[in-house]
C-alpha cells in the first residue's frame, strides 16, 4: 500500500478552514433555494469556491503522480489529467456534495517531452470528490460499459466508447478510495440502476468472506485478489496509444503483439498496473455522474403555436441590432462558421446588446459553439444565438438542444423561476445560410427536455435516426419537390422534433418568416410552409 502524500500541516489547516467556509456558504444559501434537489450539470455559483478548493487540494495531494500517472516503459507514461472545465456536481444530501471530474487520457514521452493525445480506452475514468463538513475525500472511479469490445479478447483492437452514456449506463464501476490507500467496491449497473455486487472472491486471510448490501446504497465487501488491471496498447505502426481496463484482471496469459482486425495495425499489449487487495469494509457507493441539466417542471411555460408566434418572430428579426449582427455574421462566414449571442440588455426593455461575432477556436467549417452565455445586466441576458451555416444546411439537432445549455448557467440558475419562465418564453436560435434565415423556438420545453434525455443517452443513435430520415427524404422525394438544399435537413428536424419546436424560414434579407411543417403533396410527405389563418 503506497503512503499518500498530504499537504503540509499549515496548508492542511488553511484548506480545512476554506472547506468549512465553502460548506457553510453552500448550505446556508441552499436553505433559501426553491429547488434544493435540482441536479445541475456544472457547479453552481455557491460551489465555485468549493471547486477551487478541490483543485488546490488535488494539486497538493500528489494523487496526480501517485494514482493517475503510470509507467509503460522507460520513456512512456500514461497520464490521466483532470478536466476541471467538465466538472459536475451532485447534491448527495443536506450535508454533502459529490463532484465528478472526468480524467482525460494522454500518453507522455518524457524523454522527448511529447504528449500523445491520439488515444483511446474502453472505459471512463473519473475523480470523484466527496465534500462534507468533515472534509474532502478523493475517490478514483472507473466505469466499464458492457457495450464495449470484450475485455479478454486480445485481438479485439481499439475501443472508442462511441455510445457511452451515464444516462443508460450498463456495465461495471470500480471505486478506489485514494485517501485510505486502496480500498475497492465494485458495482454493476443496468440502465444506470445499481444491480448487484460483482466481486465475490475467496478470502485467504481469515476475515469475513463475501459481500452484501448493508443498506440501500452501502456495501459490506470482503475479498482478496488482484484487481484493477490496466493494459497499455501501443500501436507503433499507427502511432496511437490506448488503455484497456480490465477490472477483474481476467485477461490472462500476459501481453504480446496483436493485430487490430479492423485495419491490421499491430499493437503491443502489456500489463501496466494491477492492485492486490485484501480488504473488508462498508462504504457508500457514489451515484453515477449526473446527466444533462433538467428543467424544473414548475417553470415550464405554456405551448405556443407557430402561427401565433409568427408575427413576434418577424418583429424580433427586424430589430436593428440583431439585423446588424446577422449581416456581420454573414459577411464573416465565407468559409468558417461565425456567430454571436443574442443578448437582451434587460428583461423588460426588449432591446439587444451588440455582441462579439466570433468563430470557434480553431475556426470550423461545420461547427460553432459560441462564447459562454451570460445572465446579468453588464453582459446582457442571452436568450439565444445566431450563427451561419456556410454549407447551406438547416438547423441541426445539436443547434436545437443548445437552447438547454442555459439551464446549466450558474447566474441563470441563481435568478430563479422568473428567469426560467422568461427564458422559456423568449428563447430562440437563428441560423443563417446563403439564401435563407431560420429561426427555431421551443414550443414544448417539457417534451424537449424528455427528448434531450434520449439524445444524451445515445447521441449516435439519435443522429442515425436523423440521418436515416433525411436519406429517405432524398431517396423518395421527386427532385422537382426538393426546393432548397436545406429541405432534407428541415424535414428530418421536424420529423424528429415534431411540434416540440417551431421552425421558421425567411428568404435572406427578409423578415417575413413562415412556419415550416410536414405535409402531404401528390402522395409525398414533404417539408412545406404552414398556412396560417
Amino acid at each position, binding site marked *: 500500500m503506497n503512503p499518500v502524500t498530504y499537504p503540509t500541516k499549515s496548508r492542511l489547516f488553511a484548506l480545512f478552514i476554506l472547506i468549512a467556509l465553502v460548506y457553510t456558504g453552500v448550505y446556508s444559501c441552499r436553505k433559501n433555494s426553491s429547488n434544493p434537489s435540482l441536479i445541475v450539470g456544472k457547479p453552481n455559483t455557491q460551489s465555485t469556491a468549493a471547486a477551487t478548493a478541490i483543485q488546490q487540494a488535488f494539486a497538493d495531494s500528489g494523487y496526480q503522480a501517485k494514482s493517475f500517472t503510470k509507467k509503460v516503459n522507460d520513456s512512456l507514461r500514461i497520464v490521466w489529467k483532470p478536466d476541471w472545465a467538465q466538472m459536475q456536481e451532485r447534491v448527495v444530501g443536506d450535508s454533502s456534495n459529490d463532484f465528478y471530474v472526468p480524467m482525460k487520457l494522454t500518453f507522455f514521452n518524457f524523454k522527448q517531452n511529447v504528449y500523445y493525445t491520439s488515444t483511446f480506452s474502453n472505459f471512463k475514468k473519473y475523480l470523484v470528490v466527496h465534500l462534507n463538513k468533515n472534509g474532502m475525500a478523493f475517490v478514483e472511479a472507473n466505469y466499464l460499459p458492457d*457495450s464495449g469490445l470484450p475485455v479478454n479478447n486480445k485481438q479485439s483492437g481499439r475501443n472508442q466508447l*462511441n*455510445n457511452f452514456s451515464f444516462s443508460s449506463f450498463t456495465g461495471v464501476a470500480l471505486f478506489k478510495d485514494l485517501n485510505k490507500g486502496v480500498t475497492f467496491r465494485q458495482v454493476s449497473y443496468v440502465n444506470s440502476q445499481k444491480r448487484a455486487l460483482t466481486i465475490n472472491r475467496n478470502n485467504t486471510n481469515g476475515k469475513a468472506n463475501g459481500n452484501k448490501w448493508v443498506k440501500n446504497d452501502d456495501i459490506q465487501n470482503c475479498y482478496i485478489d488482484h484487481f484493477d488491471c490496466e493494459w497499455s496498447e501501443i500501436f507503433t505502426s499507427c502511432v496511437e496509444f490506448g488503455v484497456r481496463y480490465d477490472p477483474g484482471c481476467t485477461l490472462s496469459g500476459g501481453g504480446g503483439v496483436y493485430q487490430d*482486425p479492423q485495419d491490421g495495425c499491430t499493437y503491443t499489449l502489456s500489463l501496466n498496473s494491477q492492485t492486490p487487495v485484501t480488504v473488508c469494509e462498508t462504504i457508500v457507493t457514489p451515484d453515477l455522474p449526473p446527466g444533462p441539466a433538467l428543467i424544473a417542471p414548475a417553470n415550464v411555460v405554456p405551448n405556443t403555436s407557430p402561427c401565433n408566434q409568427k408575427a413576434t418572430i418577424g418583429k424580433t428579426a427586424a430589430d436593428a441590432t440583431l439585423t446588424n449582427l446577422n449581416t456581420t455574421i454573414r459577411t464573416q462566414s465565407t468559409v468558417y462558421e461565425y456567430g454571436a449571442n443574442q443578448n437582451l440588455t434587460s428583461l423588460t426593455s426588449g432591446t439587444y446588446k451588440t455582441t462579439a461575432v466570433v468563430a470557434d477556436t480553431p475556426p470550423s467549417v*461545420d*461547427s460553432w459553439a459560441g462564447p459562454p452565455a451570460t445572465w446579468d445586466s453588464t453582459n446582457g441576458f442571452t436568450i439565444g444565438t445566431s450563427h451561419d*451555416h456556410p*454549407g*447551406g*444546411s438547416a438547423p*441541426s*439537432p*445539436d*443547434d436545437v438542444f443548445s437552447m438547454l445549455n442555459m439551464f446549466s448557467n450558474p447566474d441563470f440558475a441563481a435568478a430563479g423561476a422568473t428567469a426560467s419562465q422568461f427564458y422559456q418564453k423568449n428563447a430562440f436560435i437563428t441560423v443563417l445560410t446563403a439564401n435563407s434565415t431560420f429561426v427555431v423556438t421551443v414550443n414544448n420545453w417539457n417534451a424537449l427536455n424528455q427528448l434531450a434525455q*434520449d439524445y444524451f443517452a*445515445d*447521441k*449516435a*443513435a*439519435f*443522429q*442515425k*435516426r*436523423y*440521418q*436515416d*430520415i*433525411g*436519406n*429517405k*427524404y*432524398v*431517396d*423518395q422525394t421527386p*427532385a422537382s419537390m*426538393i426546393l432548397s*438544399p436545406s429541405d*432534407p*435537413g428541415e424535414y*428530418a428536424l421536424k*420529423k424528429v422534433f415534431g411540434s416540440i419546436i417551431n421552425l421558421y424560414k425567411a428568404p435572406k434579407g427578409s423578415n417575413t418568416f413562415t412556419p415550416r411543417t410536414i405535409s402531404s403533396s401528390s*402522395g*409525398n*410527405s414533404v417539408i412545406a410552409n404552414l398556412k396560417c389563418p
Partner: protein
Amino acid sequence: MRSICLFIISLFFGVSAIGQQITVGGSVNVTLPAGSAQLTQAAATTLLQQKFPSYPYTSEMISLNGTLPYTYCNVNGNLLQLYYKQVDGRGTYLTSQKAQYDALGAENGANTRIQYTSSISTIGNNPVLLTYNTGGGVATYHFVCSSSTYNTGAIIGTLSFAPGDKTAVTATLNTILSSITFVSTFSINNKTTTPFQLTFRRSDGVSINISLAPSTNNLTSLIPVGTYTLTISPAGMPASHNIIFGNRPIVVGAGTTFTNVNISSGSSDLSLLID
C-alpha cells in the same frame, strides 16, 4: 456410381449457392445470396424490431411513404430494402445526391458521431454511391446505383445489420451490387432538329417522360416491363417528320400516339427513329 452421386450433390449445392434473381421496378435485375427471402413491409418492420430490440427508431428505417413500391428482402438475417426511382442517373446525378446525404450530418461533428462515410465508385458495371452510418447498435449501408448509359432510372437501397458483422456484410453487399443489371431498354434516335417529348403511360399509373433533344443518336432508356401508350409530341416548332416505331407502319406527322406498346424482352416495340 459413387462419383456420379457426388457430382449430382455438388451440382445441387453449386446451383443453390448461385442465389436468386429478382427484378426491381420492372427494369433492374438483382441477384441475392441463396436463401434470401422477399418480405412484406410489415414483415420487414418485424425483422428490424427483432434484430435491433434496443434501437427505438426501427420504424423510421422503413419507407416514409408506404405506397412506394419498395422491395424488402431478408438477406442472411439482415434487411435489404430496394427501390427503383425514375430519374436520370447519368452525369452529375450521383455527385449531387452525395452532397445532399453528406450535408445532413455535416454540422457539429455529427458525421463523426455516426462514423458516416460516403463514396462514389464503380461496382460491377455501374456507378454506385455508397454511404455508411452506425448508431445505437445498428449499422446501415445506403446506396444509389445508377447507370452511366440509361436516362430513366436508378436503384436505391439500404442494408441494415449489426455493426460487428460489417466485414461479412460488406462482402455480401459488394456481390449484390456487382450483380445489378439494367434491363428493358428502349433505343431512341432523333435525327431532326426538333426537340420532342415522349410519354410512356401504363394502365396502372406508371408514367415515364423523356425529353428528347434534337439530333440525339442512340439514346437508351429504361422502360419497365409492361404495356404502354406512347405519346410523341414536338417540344419546339412543329414540323412533319417520319416517325418509325419498331416494325409498325411509318407515321408521317409532327407527333403521334401508339397504343398497346409492348415493352418486354424480344418485343419489336423497343426502338424509335424520328427522321
